[in-house]
Every structure is written in C-alpha cells, then in structure tokens.
C-alpha cells in the first residue's frame, strides 16, 4: 500500500527536460537583472536619504553658530554729570491719576533724552583704560539698543544714579562678525565694517574675558529689529504664526471635518457632489500663490480686513488647508468598516446618530493626524503671505490676531534678504532651525497621538 517514488518515465521527461534546460539557461541573466533593479531601488533611497542628510546638516552647520553671540560685560557708572534728570515724580494727594501718569511720562521722556551713549562710551573706555579709542569706534562695539537698556534700568530704579553696576551688553552685529570670523580678518581697513581700533579693542576684550560668547536667548524673546540687528529675534513672528495656526485650527478643522462627513456619509452620488469632489481635489493642488491673490482681493480689498494681520493670514491658510483636511478625513471615514455602520443602523440608530456616535469617533486619530499635518504645512507657507502684507517690519509682539505681525517663514524670507549678509546668513539658518524644529515637533506629536489613540481602540 506504500507509494514508492518512481521517477517520471523517460519519454515524459524529454519535452520537459528540453524546456527546463531553456529555463535554466535564462536564469543567470534574469537574476542579474533582478539584482540591478534592486540596486537601483537602493540607490534611489540612498539619494533621497542623502538629500535629507545634506539639507539638515548644512542648515545645522550654518545656523547653530548664530545661537551664540558675543556679550560684553563692563562696569557701568550712572554718572550724575551725564544723567542730569530731576527725581522721579511722586504722586501727591491732590493729583489725579491721569495727571500723575502725565508727569511720569514727562519724566521718562527726560530720561530718554539723556545722552546714554555717553554713559556707554565711558563704560567701554573705563574697561580698557589705557586704550585710545574714538567715541564712534567705542560705541560701534556694542549694540545700539543697549542705550535703551540703561535707560530702562534707570527708570526702574532711579537709585542707580551715581552708582556703578556690572552690565552684560550685547555686542553689535559687526563686532560679533569680527569675533566669529564671519568677515575676512585679513581684509584692509576700507573693506572692514569696524574701525581698526574697534577691532583691536574687541579682540582685547575677548582675550581678557570681558567679552564672551553666550547663548542668545533673545532670539526667542525679542521681535525683529532693524536698528539693532544683533538683538533681532523671532518672538513676534512666532506669535504671529501661532495666531494663524489658531485661526486655521478653529476654522479649518470643523468646516473640513463637517464637509468630509457630508460628502462621505450623506451626500447622494450625483453631478453636484461629483462637482464638489472634483473641486476639492483641485483646490488641494491650486498653487498657494493663487490663494494669496484671493486673500488680497477678497479679505483685504473687499472685506477691508487689516493688512499684515494674522487673522487674514489665518483665513487664507484656512482655505488652503481645508482640502487637505477634507481629503484626509474622507479617507479616514472610508476606512471605517461598513460593519460598524450596519451595527448601529441595525439596532435603530439613525444615520446621523450612526455617524456622530460611532463612525466619526473611530476616525479621530486620522483626523488628528491630518489636522496636524495640514497645520504644519500652513505654518511653513510663505508665498501667499507676501501678497497680504505679512512681510511688514513689525517690531512689536502682536497682542491679538488683528494686530500686524510677521510669520516665521516670512521672517526667514526677510532675513535672508537683509543687507548685513555676514550676520544674517547665519541668523536665517538659525530661524530655519527653529521652524524645522517646530515642524518636527508637530509631526512627532501627530505620530505620538496617533499611536496612543490607536492603541486605545
């Protein structure tokens, strides 16, 4: 009853042996082709990964130095001979609050009028007593905004008059360039930004430790600055971007999710919904610059919303982000198994109840990811913002979405065009690092939340 193995009969083998020989003959070449194809794939991936690596390392390489800046620490003497102001007004009994404010403002104006540059100059000269330097050169070492710092210190504490305190001052952009070697040190005087004495003094301060590189926190706390480039920061642009993101989230998410729900769950299949669908897919690919034109024409010219306002930027970006959210939500809805809908319908839930109680909650992770990705895209968008005036110079941090403001990518654009190339090339990369960091963070949050929400299911 056992089966014994008998090789196929000789004749039967003939045809098939011939065939096998042919197949075998081709195998070598075919496998070589297979290997080549696979190598091509690996090469493509290597190229793509290589681009990522180069891009990130170049930007880090260029931008990281900008996060430290030279600071000069010197004794500042609030010389009563220069700071000649009356005592700070005190509120007396009959004075109304408004009158007192007036008086205080007058006093502050007088403090502002003090020649703080003289105080600065004296302090710098005192730090290197044996060094001969002219006023202009001495002042060119520290940032011009430092004089307002001295003023603010004095306003906050008039008791400083006649006192000497240690103050850490931001070196000017040119001094920073010189010390970092951003400008060719061997160039003749005519091609240098700083005078020879200012350069020598900076070097000397560096040697004796009064000048030091420190982390430039002000990049994160200051707004953009033109008059004091070394103190320029991203805070204003960051807040502007934040407002825009808020607007996008508040508007694009509900509208996007609702229209996705309608199109996927309720809409009958007809010409009209077909039209909406084509329309949405098209909007997803309309160039962003066209949205800028739309924003300029509709929100600025027609509705007369203020220029440079994050609200308008947010509205434009909302319209841009909507299709992304709709499409992603629709595909998330489509992925919900029909069995879930049937289950709810089968026990007498209405269509609306089914969708809102069961289907939609299941898609939250998908919607969330889509939202974050859409918002991240909006965060990085530049071109449309240029057309609605977001490329203004704004020195203040906006207090509301209606106040003028810049945005992170626009700030990058502005900085890359700044005339002080030596200083702003690195600063631009630093801003890019911040923006990319934000992007990566958003994406990481998306991945994290998604993983968590999906685990909970």
């Amino acid at each position, binding site marked *: 009853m056992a089966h014994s193995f008998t090789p196929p009969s000789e004749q039967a083998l003939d045809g098939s042996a011939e065939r096998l020989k042919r197949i075998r003959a081709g195998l070598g070449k075919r496998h070589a082709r297979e290997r080549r194809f696979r190598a091509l794939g690996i090469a493509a991936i290597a190229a793509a990964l290589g681009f990522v690596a180069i891009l990130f390392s170049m930007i880090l390489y260029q931008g990281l130095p900008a996060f430290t800046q030279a600071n000069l620490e010197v004794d500042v003497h609030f010389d009563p001979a220069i700071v000649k102001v009356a005592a700070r007004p005190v509120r007396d009994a009959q004075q109304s609050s408004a009158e007192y404010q007036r008086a205080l403002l007058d006093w502050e104006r007088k403090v*502002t009028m003090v020649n703080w540059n003289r105080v600065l100059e004296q302090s710098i000269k005192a730090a290197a007593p044996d060094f001969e330097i002219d006023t202009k050169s001495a002042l060119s070492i520290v940032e011009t905004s430092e004089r307002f710092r001295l003023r603010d210190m004095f306003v906050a504490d008039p008791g400083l008059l006649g006192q000497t305190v240690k103050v850490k001052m931001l070196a000017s952009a040119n001094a920073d360039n010189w010390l970092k070697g951003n400008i060719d040190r061997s*160039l003749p005087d005519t091609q240098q930004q700083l005078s020879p004495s200012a350069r020598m003094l900076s070097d000397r301060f560096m040697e004796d430790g009064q000048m030091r590189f420190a982390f430039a926190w002000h990049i994160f706390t200051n707004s953009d600055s033109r008059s004091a480039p070394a103190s320029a920061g991203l805070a204003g642009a960051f807040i502007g971007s934040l407002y825009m993101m808020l607007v996008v989230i508040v508007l694009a998410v509900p509208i996007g999710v609702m229209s996705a729900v309608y199109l996927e769950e309720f809409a009958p299949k007809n010409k009209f919904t077909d039209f909406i669908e084509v329309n949405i897919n098209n909007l997803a690919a309309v160039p962003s610059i066209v949205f800028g034109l739309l924003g300029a024409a509709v929100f600025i010219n027609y509705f007369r919303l*203020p*220029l*440079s306002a994050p609200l308008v930027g947010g509205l434009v970006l909302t319209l841009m982000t909507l299709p992304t959210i709709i499409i992603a939500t629709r595909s998330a809805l489509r992925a919900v198994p029909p069995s879930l809908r049937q289950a709810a319908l089968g026990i007498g839930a209405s269509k609306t109840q089914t969708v809102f109680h069961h289907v939609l909650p299941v898609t939250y992770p998908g919607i969330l990811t889509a939202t974050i990705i859409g918002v991240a895209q909006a965060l990085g968008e530049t071109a449309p913002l240029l057309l609605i005036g977001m490329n*203004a110079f*704004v020195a203040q941090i906006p207090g509301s979405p209606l106040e003028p403001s810049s945005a992170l990518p626009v700030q990058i654009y502005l900085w890359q065009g700044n*005339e002080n190339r030596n200083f702003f090339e690195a600063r631009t990369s630093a801003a890019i690092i911040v923006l990319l960091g934000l992007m990566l963070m958003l994406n990481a949050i998306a991945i994290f939340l998604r993983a968590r929400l999906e685990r909970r299911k």
Partner: protein
Amino acid sequence: ASLGAASAQSRDTMQIAGSSTVLPFSSIVAEEFGQAFPEFKTPVVGSGGTGGGLRQFCAGVGDNTIDIANASRRMKAAEIESCNAAGVNDIREIQIGYDGIVFASNASKGEFALEPVHVFKAIAAQVAVDGKLVDNPYKSWNEIDASLPNQPISLAIPASNHGTREVFQEKVIADGAKAAGLPELSKEELEKVTTTFRQDVVIEIAGDYTETLSRLQSNADTIGVFGLSFYDQNRDTLKVATVSGVTPSLETVAAGEYPVSRPLYFYVKGEHIGTVPGINEFVEFYLSEQMAGLGGTLEAAGLIPAPAEETAAVLAAFQEGKALTVDAVK
C-alpha cells in the same frame, strides 16, 4: 463689505507701507520712535514697493488704510488724482534724503572707473560705430575703453519692478546715450535704443540686492548695481566703481558730485493726523538731527542726508499743512 470698519474701532498703531528702499530707514526710525516715545506704539512698516504702498495709501481715509507711504520716487499725478478721488486730499510730502546707486564688482576683481557712456555701450543692444547703429560688438570692457580692465562684460541691473531701475535708466543710460555718438534718431527710435539691452550680458534682478550679490559671488566677472547702503554693509566682498571719476560716498552724493542718486520720500495722510496718535511726533522725529541729520542714525544705515536747510523747509511745509497737488508734480 466693511467687516473691518466694525472691528477696528480706533487704531493706535501707525501704519506705514511702501518702497523697499525706504523700508530699512523707516523701520529704524519706527523702532527708535517706539523706544523714545513710550506713549505711542511702535509703527508697523510694511513693504510692497512704492507702487504697492501708494495703492494702499490711496485706498481712502479711515482705520483700515495706512497712514504713511514710503516712496523711492515722487508720487505721480495719476496717483494723486486717484488718491483725491478716494477722499485722500491732504497728502503731505516729506523728502528724507538721498539714495546713491553704485556699481560694484566682486572684491577680487580689478578697479573700474566707469562713465555712463561705458555702461551704455556695454549693455545697449545697438551702439553707434562710425556714426551708424550696429549690433553691439563689445565682448569685454577694455574693448569699450582701454582704461577699463580686460574682463568680460556682465552687468546685473535691477529689473523693471524696481524703482532703482528708473534711476539707472535716466541717470546712466540716457546720459550715456548722449555721449555715445549716436546718429540722429527720432524720439521713438531713441527710446528703443535706450531701453533695449543685450540679453547675453545683462542680468535683470527682480529680487532684492541679496540676489544681485549672489550673482556676483557665483560669477566674479559680473558688475552689480546696488544701493549705497547695501554696498556699505558688504564692503568686504564688494568693490565699488567710480562714476565720472567720483567715488560714491555720503559726501559726494550729498554734495551732488556723484551723478547716480535719487531723493527718497514718504507721504503722510493729513486726514489721519490727530486721529491716529503720534503722526506729528513721528514726522518730527524722523526729520530730527539725530535721525535723518548729518551723523545721525540713518546716515549710519546708509541714507544720504539732505542739507539741514532743505530738511527744515520740508518740516516747515509739513507743519503748515501744505498738501501735495497734481500741479506740483507736473
């Protein structure tokens, strides 16, 4: 159609927009103004170019229009008319100083002592040879004039969306054409000759000066057209050319020796004075000695100050409330 009107009941931040050439100066003044006048908010300085700024300026009176327009040229009659049509009648013109336009090459290259006619001969599509118009034959600068370096001709000039281009056209090309020994030409022909350039050597820059700079860095033979302040900030990589024997500098431009310069302006909407706080103070601060004056902050930033008397006259006219009219610019 007036959502904005309801939302911005009263605005307390001054809004400025316009020329990108004036932008850095106004930004600096705005920033210092904010520091010096704690009772006022720091004005916002938008860009958008002279035209874009004037468009917003002339949109009308009210909260949702800007207060000040920066301009790197004088306002034109048509613009004043449309301003008036929109209810903006009290336009006050402030001239803040001058802007010098310089030719600069890569710092590693030879010296250039340019004349307008050199530039014209270098880039015009047609030049006169023996009194006849022919296609431009010059390949390198020393073919035009032996005193110039033996270096291939390549010139990066601002594109037509820049105000600077206009100055270049009027002060360099038009002047150069006069000295180029052109045959008798009709007005149209002359315009054609002075506006048609060789594509192979001319690079039109529609972006900002950074782009011009990067052109010079990638092709060292290129000569670029820059604003004086931009050149000043990048002296380490640029070498400036003399024009008609004059080296561009604050002094030579202010003294009127250096030929390629233009006045810079801003325009104030009189209707907003007193309603948007700080406009008067801002204008006075802008024109003050410490800002726009000789040795002032703006000079350090590259603005060429106007003589003190000129500035004083401008300020006086402003304070008098003298409005710009169509006739004044004709």
